[in-house]
């Protein structure tokens, strides 16, 4: 299995606070990697460093062997990396369909051709497919702001997938979602992984969600990697148990 994404000794500190302290791991092609850890273990900061939202203070990030450390998020997106956010970030004033078209349009042609091309940049068929895939058909024309929280979470994931990315980083996709929606979300993510071959990296606190969805799990504590392996191995690892229950 080839490494799609490799993170090498990544470091990030904010003044005196060290958030990410030499994290190294690989993400294999087509796997679903979960990242868990107690609060403050540096998970979101790690994401932000990988995704160019923050500049890391040290270390390297490689995609397909090519160095992508510190690239802007929009450049990364065009290389096939996309993400969702912990705090929901959809566009409430646009309809569900418009949100999806927006999410995909920047990958069609260039800025100039988009100006003179079709109103939807040709994204409507793809948007309709995504709407059906996430079973949001009845909400397609509704303003995204009027959806329920769980539905917005689905839309958020859908938007991240519109550009047909090879790698999707999801930041707490299950947060605040009720049980039925959760099952839906898990099943849709598995389907995306299986059908479209998208590699997923998921930060989560919801243990059941992570353990049942992911093929491997990485545990972070205090900015350092603690353990990595199959869900059962990690769940039974004494160091992990202590990190969560000890202190």
């Amino acid at each position, binding site marked *: 299995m080839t490494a799609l994404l490799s993170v090498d000794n990544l470091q990030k500190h904010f003044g005196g606070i060290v958030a990410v302290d030499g994290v190294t791991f690989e993400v294999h092609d087509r796997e679903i990697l979960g990242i868990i850890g107690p609060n403050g273990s540096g998970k979101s900061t790690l994401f932000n460093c990988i995704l160019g939202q923050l500049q890391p203070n040290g270390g390297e990030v490689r995609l397909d062997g090519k160095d992508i450390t510190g690239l802007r998020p*929009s450049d990364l997106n065009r290389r096939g990396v996309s993400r969702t956010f912990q705090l929901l970030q959809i566009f409430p*004033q646009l309809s569900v369909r*418009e949100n999806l078209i927006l999410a995909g349009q920047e990958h069609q042609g260039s*800025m100039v051709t988009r*100006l003179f091309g079709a109103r939807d940049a040709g994204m409507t068929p793809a948007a309709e497919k995504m709407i059906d895939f996430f079973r949001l058909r009845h909400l397609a024309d509704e303003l995204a702001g009027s959806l329920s929280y769980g539905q917005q979470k689905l839309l958020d994931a859908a938007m991240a997938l519109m*550009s047909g990315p090879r790698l999707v980083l999801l930041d707490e996709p299950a947060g605040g979602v009720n049980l039925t929606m959760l099952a839906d979300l898990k099943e849709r993510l598995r389907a995306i992984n299986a059908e479209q071959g998208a590699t997923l990296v998921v930060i989560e606190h919801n243990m059941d969600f992570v353990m049942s969805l992911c093929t491997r799990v990485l545990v972070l504590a205090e900015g350092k990697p603690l353990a990595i392996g199959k869900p059962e191995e990690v769940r039974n690892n004494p160091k992990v148990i202590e990190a969560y229950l000890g202190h």
Partner: protein
Amino acid sequence: MNARNVSLAILAAIVVAALLAAPLVLKSYGIYILSLWAVTTIGAIGLNLTLGYAGQISLAQAAFVGIGAYCAAILTKNGYPLPFAYVLAFASCFSIGWILGYPALRVEHHYLAFVTLAFTTLVYLIFRNEEWLTGGVSGIGGIPRPVIFGYSLKGAAEFYYFCLANLAVVSLAFWWLIRSPWGRAFVAVRENPIRALSLGVDTRRYTLMAFAIGAGLGGISGVLLAPLVQFIDPSPFSLTASLNLLLMVVIGGSGYFFGPFVGAIVAVLLPEWLRFSGGLYLIFYAVLVMVLMAVCPTGLIGLAGRVLKLVSKPAAPAAKAAMERTLERTT
């Protein structure tokens, strides 16, 4: 076609008819005021793009209008037809917009506001000092009205229709821009630039484009202003004028398609109406802006939208969404 859209369409038709029939009813000064409104609206549309759609504060719009006006004055007085002025004005203002914006938008903190502040003041100095080009404080007079295909636009009514036609073309072009994928990107950049970036939207480039196009439209506005007033000097292109344009767009409703139209009314007609109160009109204007910002930052159109929502009966969700959408910022 529900009741809301029908009544809006009727309102639009009435307004257009009134605009077209105005010269029959008004004397030449009234026609001049309307022409001034049309020309000002073009500049305001440009600023609305920068402020309302890209979320950037530009304090240089009057300087761009001035550049356009001097282009037109100098070119037409030297025998070049007006189209040359259009091209030169738009090209130069667009380029300057790009040059100013590129470094300023690398950093947050609304640096573009300060850069445009400095630029406006600098350009005003150049207008005032370079007499060989601009006539300095004495300005340039006797600017001819254009002749289109042999038809002279010297008369007040003829030139007014010319201004209206320009406004119509600019409005249509703007409408088309906002409905294109760029318009969607502008919404994204304005509403949530972080999310937009993660979706591959090059926020910096779109913001730059909005600012540069907005500047170009300011130039176009100036190209029409010169033959309208037929005498230009530096005074209408000062920092104060830029601030007034900014307030005008905000009062009308920044980010709304019709915001500039409403704002330009307020800006052009308000001093006329309040002439009896002397210089107080500016104070009133400024206080109005402050109150609006506290109560309804989305300007008069936003206020109208809110009032209409309160007044109308609750409707079924889909119909209500459609209703909201017609009054909502254009996407």
